[in-house]
């Protein structure tokens, strides 16, 4: 009854362009924000933070980034893991080179460095399209991981080849290193996610976002109506890589604390983020969150059911996990190629018309 507007009485473009045109949605959004900011920090514990919340938040940023590139600008990228590595390693270099600067600034700077690298690897997209481009971005993935493995300067010549996040504080509270309280790590990630989602939403409905979508739908036609493919594609790569870089920096500094590049940022990571975007829904900010939530919680749930409930050995459960994730991806693509976001949209449409669908 309350999930609808009383007719279509918009009188300004501003009202027409609202993100949440229905009042219920708007309040729901505020409620989610309030719970995330005001309730969860007080009830969070180590397990909840490390198993679900931190990876969910960080992958959400990465998924938003990839969704900008793939969902909005139509350029498929399999180099997400490599770009996350750039974010992680630049954050590490900055943190160790300038210990007095706030770590949050380092994370943002790491994002900008990744944006530059991403734009450089985006250059071939002007010539190469479709699958060829997808495979070309793998060059970024393999080259970057190799680079961080081989050039000792990037990991400060440490013997293990790992990078370890030193302890840094924000307002006197440690947010990286071993003494981090789960709520502090959570709040930092949540802050970045909130800002990232706001920026992404507003970029994609503005001029830039429309240019990206024009390029996605047909790049030649977009060129004819006056969209410069050079700036549109490169800006998509840069903005996308910025988010991915921030995600990589957080993933290293706050979530893992110690990283070995091939293990943490390998090709599997690229696929994982791509799955999130596809399952969540291409071209939807909400979809990025939905996809990240789905793929982060699925292994946890499977492990609970398989190991704790059925008492199977862990390796068997790990195999089952692969089978189930693979089957689910195929099932989703068959049932709803536009992802969870589309299911959500359909449900909302139905709700709006209910109980008189015709």
């Amino acid at each position, binding site marked *: 009854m309350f999930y609808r507007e009383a007719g279509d009485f918009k009188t300004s473009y501003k009202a027409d362009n609202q993100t949440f045109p229905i009042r219920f949605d708007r309040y729901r959004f505020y409620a989610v924000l309030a719970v995330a900011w005001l309730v969860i920090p007080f009830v969070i514990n180590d397990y909840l933070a490390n198993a679900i919340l931190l990876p969910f938040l960080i992958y959400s940023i990465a998924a938003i980034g990839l969704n900008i590139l793939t969902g909005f600008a139509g350029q498929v990228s399999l180099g997400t893991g490599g770009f996350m590595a750039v974010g992680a390693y630049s954050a590490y270099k900055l943190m160790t080179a300038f210990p007095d600067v706030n770590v949050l600034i380092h994370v943002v700077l790491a994002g900008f460095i990744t944006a530059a690298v991403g734009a450089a690897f985006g250059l071939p997209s002007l*010539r*190469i399209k479709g699958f060829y481009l997808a495979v*070309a971005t793998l*060059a970024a993935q393999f080259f970057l*991981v190799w680079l961080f493995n081989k050039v000792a300067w990037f990991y400060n010549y440490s013997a293990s080849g790992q990078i370890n996040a030193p302890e840094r504080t924000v307002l006197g509270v440690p947010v990286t290193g071993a003494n981090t309280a789960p709520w502090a790590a959570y709040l930092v990630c949540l802050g970045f996610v909130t800002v990232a989602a706001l920026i992404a939403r507003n970029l994609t409905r503005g001029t830039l976002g429309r240019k990206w979508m024009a390029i996605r739908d047909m790049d030649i036609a977009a060129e004819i109506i006056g969209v410069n493919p050079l700036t549109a594609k490169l800006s998509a790569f840069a903005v996308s890589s910025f988010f991915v870089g921030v995600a990589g920096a957080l993933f290293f500094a706050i979530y893992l604390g110690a990283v070995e590049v091939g293990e943490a940022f390998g090709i599997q990571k690229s696929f994982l983020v791509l799955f999130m975007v*596809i399952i969540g829904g291409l071209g939807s900010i909400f979809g990025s969150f939905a996809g990240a939530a789905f793929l982060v919680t699925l292994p946890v749930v499977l492990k609970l059911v398989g190991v704790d409930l059925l008492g199977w050995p862990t390796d068997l459960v790990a195999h089952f996990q*692969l089978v189930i994730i693979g089957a689910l*991806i195929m099932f989703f*693509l068959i049932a709803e190629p536009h992802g969870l976001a589309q299911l959500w949209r359909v449900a909302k449409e139905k709700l709006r018309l209910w109980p008189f669908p015709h």
Partner: protein
Amino acid sequence: MSADFYYGVEVFLNGLMAGVLYALVALGFVLIYKASGIFNYAQGVMALFAALTLASIIEGQVPFARLINATFGTEIHDFGWRVPVLLAIVLSIGVMVAFAWLVQRLVFRHLVGQAPIILFMATIGLAYFLEGFGDLMWGSEIKTLDIGIPQGGNRWIEEHSAFLGGDDFYGFFIDNLDIVAALVAAVLVAGLVAFAQYSKQGRAMRAVADDHQAALSVGISLDFIWVLVWSLAGFVALVAGVMWGAKSGVQFSLSLIALKALPVLMLGGFTSIPGAIVGGLIIGVGEKLFEYLVGAPYLGGATENWFAYVVALLFLVFRPQGLFGEKIIERV
């Protein structure tokens, strides 16, 4: 000529042999891509699965043994017999054909007309599924696959080329397995080309590759052709899996050869069988020579992981459809 030069030649020859193996994997991609427009990422995992199946059938292993044991508390492992190699190969081909039929029936039939990227994603899902399924069915420990292919360096070539380089040079070292692989690949390609050119099904296959709707309208069953193509790709995967499996054991890393085949495809063009062969040879020789001449001495080694991709990338900037790919024509 100095010994260094001949070592370079040896690296070149070994690169050629590695390239043949890359080409074998790339071939499976091309077959499916041409006929159905599906870029089959699962090809590498198919090779792994096929090799795993073959090795396990030879050993007479019980499928899903671990799962059965975990569920019912039993202690079964194998049937206690060994299956002759030829019979096992036939059985494995049967498994791959059944797999092709199931994939077509359960997945790709429902995805006809979807965007290529959706199909590509579905094959990544398939790769995950098949990887987990193979492990569930046959266990995840490393298996050796011995079907009687000779291993080790070829003595004859070594002895008869030793005189070339003087005292520091002991002849070319070339693995027997690589020679066999090259011969098998040559036979396989010749067979596939002959099949596509002269048999009725082969012609239908090419017709489908050309134009789905036109093929439908002259009475070609798309369903049948797609099952056929997936079966062929499964067969190619089996051959590739056997070659790689005999070389380095049947294990998870086998599925990563798909990643090796991708730059080969980019270089050769996704739609061309000769392209897959030539691309494979170029990549194989290129990465071995680069590692030998530049990578190992100056860059700290392990350049083989990315060299192929960077070459393909640079190459594509100048020729976006690859060496032999169909020209990409864009219309508004």
